[in-house]
């Protein structure tokens, strides 16, 4: 039993933290958010140069063989910096699917290009009716000679506007809610029949509504086995969930620190507002919520390679808890900042928005409490 970080992990933390301190202040971040593209290609290349994009991948494809704890450290720091660039979408989520379920050829072909920063991936899994049920899929992929024909619509595809490739969940058999019959495809975004509607998201990112109309896919685009993609998807989604929990932890930490500084500086009624016990106890409760979030994120991350049910149980526990603490800390930070917390001009509101949307992402509190209950009772 040991919760210390390795030297390498401390190095990742220092690297990302330095990057954020020097290049990712609120002003710089907002400039990126409001730019035409909505992300910075230069930053992305820098992540590649720093080796961050290589962390979780196998050595034979140029990766660093990093563990989930390694990427947890990176995600935590990205959370502190409110980083917009699609590390989560490309490296963790799509990269996770590729690593777990891709064939040797697929990995050879795509992983080195992710590591070099050459291509960005997005995973298109949600549909307008699906909410958090990963198996609720109407999009279809019909088998045809030497490949598939993809038809359907995907909603709120994070990083969709930036992506070169999409990993798409589609139904190859079964009915709308069946886990059996779900397959995963790696699709070139420029394929004929794909159209995107791009838009900004409320937490500063970009996303797309994507429709697929008779998109022709080759056999090589299938990831994993036909009809059996669900377990692969869920395994990758659980890893992604643990990773955004870490992102939330970083954001919560920054938000708590900022608020603590504020209550020490802001004077009302002749004293810093941190002198009031009402404020002190709330700062303590926020701290406790944060520490609980850290604990449960470690737990989930360390269980990712455990047997499936333990993995699912741990991840759902963490995501539910994170949803709760993220909402709590976000709301309290805004309230304690008063009017200033409501403005676009402090980072408080931006952290709050990202934390709120992390709860919405990949299953909210209600969803995960339910999943946990089903697994444990």
């Amino acid at each position, binding site marked *: *039993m040991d919760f210390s970080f390795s030297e390498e992990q401390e190095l990742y933390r220092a690297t990302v933290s330095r990057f954020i301190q020097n290049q990712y202040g609120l002003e710089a971040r907002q400039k990126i958010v409001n730019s035409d593209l909505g992300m910075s290609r230069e930053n992305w290349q820098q992540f590649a140069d720093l080796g961050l994009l290589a962390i979780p991948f196998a050595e034979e494809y140029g990766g660093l063989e990093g563990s989930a704890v390694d990427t947890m450290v990176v995600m935590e720091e990205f959370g502190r910096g409110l980083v917009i660039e699609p590390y989560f979408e490309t490296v963790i989520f799509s990269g996770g699917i590729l690593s777990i379920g891709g064939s040797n050829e697929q990995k050879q072909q795509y992983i080195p290009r992710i590591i070099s920063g050459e291509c960005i991936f997005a995973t298109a899994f949600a549909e307008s009716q699906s909410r958090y049920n990963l198996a609720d899929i109407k999009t279809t992929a019909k088998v045809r000679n030497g490949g598939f024909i993809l038809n359907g619509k995907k909603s709120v595809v994070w990083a969709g506007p930036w992506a070169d490739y999409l990993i798409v969940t589609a139904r190859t058999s079964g009915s709308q809610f069946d886990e059996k019959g779900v397959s995963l495809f790696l699709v070139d975004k420029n394929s004929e029949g794909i159209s995107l509607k791009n838009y900004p998201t409320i937490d500063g990112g970009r996303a797309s509504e994507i429709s697929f109309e008779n998109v022709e896919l080759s056999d090589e685009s299938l990831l994993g086995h036909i009809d059996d993609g669900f377990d692969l998807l869920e395994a990758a989604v659980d890893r992604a969930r643990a990773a955004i929990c870490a992102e939330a932890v970083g954001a919560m930490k920054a938000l708590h620190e900022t608020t603590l500084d504020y209550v020490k500086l802001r004077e009302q009624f002749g004293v810093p507002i941190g002198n009031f016990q009402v404020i002190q106890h709330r700062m303590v409760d926020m701290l406790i919520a944060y520490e*609980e979030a850290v604990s449960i994120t470690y737990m989930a991350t360390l269980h990712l390679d455990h047997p499936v049910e333990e993995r699912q149980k741990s991840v759902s526990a963490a995501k539910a808890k994170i949803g709760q603490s993220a909402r709590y800390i976000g709301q309290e930070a805004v309230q304690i900042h008063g009017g200033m917390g409501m403005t676009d001009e402090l980072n408080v509101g931006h952290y709050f928005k990202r934390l709120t949307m992390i709860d919405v992402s990949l299953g909210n509190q209600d969803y995960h409490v339910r999943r946990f209950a089903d697994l444990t009772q």
Partner: protein
Amino acid sequence: MDLSFSEKDFMFREEVREFIRTEYPGDLRRKMKQGKEFAKEDFLCWQRVLYNKGWAAPSWPVEYGGTGWSATQRYIFQEELGQAATLNILPFGLKMLAPVLMAYGSDYQKGYFLPRILTGQDWWCQGYSEPGAGSDLASLRTSAVKDGDEYVVNGSKTWTSFAQWADWIFCLVRTNSMVKKQAGISFLLIDMKTPGITVRPIITIDGMHEVNEVFFDNVRVPIKNRVGEENMGWTYAKTLLSHERTGTAEVPRSKYGITSLKKNARKHISNGKSLLEDEYLSNKLAQLEIDLLALEYSDLRVLSDDFLGKKGTGAEPSILKIKGSEIQQRVTELALEITGYAGFSSLGGPLPMESNAYPTGPGFGFGAGSEYFNMRKSTIYGGSNEIQRNIIAKTVLGL
């Protein structure tokens, strides 16, 4: 970062588990199951079993009769005790007084009292709070005035758990009232048989008699029973508060509590299905279990020194106590909800003449009401959660 226990720890766990399975007294197990009240002898019986094994005081240094276990082993030991739902050995002598004696007691005090604590020969109670000094403990007033070789003690202490069984009481008393309130306090050991001491029972809302008021009327205490120096008692008492870094969260006991909750909810049929199939209730249970998981991993992080930014500010037990007590309360709250109307039946309190034998209603519901009311104490005692928050605000946040 690594979750696995070493082979050695694994073996140790097996050993502890086996010991509890074979040595834990069967009638204590039965009493717990039936929700019966425990007697003094029950506590002592279990302590003697532990003593004979050499496990009565895991946190003591070996020289005094401790086990010499690592922090992880102590954690495992607590975990196994909790999961087996063994009777809690009371902390007053073993965990609260002993560390103070070891650090500040005279050779005589150490030589005389520590072995008797270990064997259970002396039952100790704690004399800190007073009717006028609760959260503001340092404002205590029970006075000890020097008279020859003795102190003469006058005043009263309250919330004294199991004073009715105690042989000795360790007290904070005022020996100087001219200085800052923290600076005039001394730490005295008082024989409960000394003339002038009376114990008045306080019956709590759960109907039980656990706590008391203890009155001191010209009670004469030999000076050799003062621990350390005069007027330094506050410092001594404070150091012991942060003595146990983990364990304040009571994770294993709550785990056991949740396991029984689930078992009971499964048995309880309402509207033709088990309560566990009731989505509201099962959600609440899941939420509670998730919170307990977070607490468990916080406990483990404290154990491996990764908590509160590794600063080791000493506030860890405060955080663990706040969350631990809240969770204990929720466990009993849910138990009462599951019990439904049977929660009306009360364990403590006077039995009316016409009452039938207990239990009333389903066996598992027996005592649920009492336990719920009893557990409200957990956010009040040992430094209320408000006081814990003050401590954290000051030491961790610098507010």
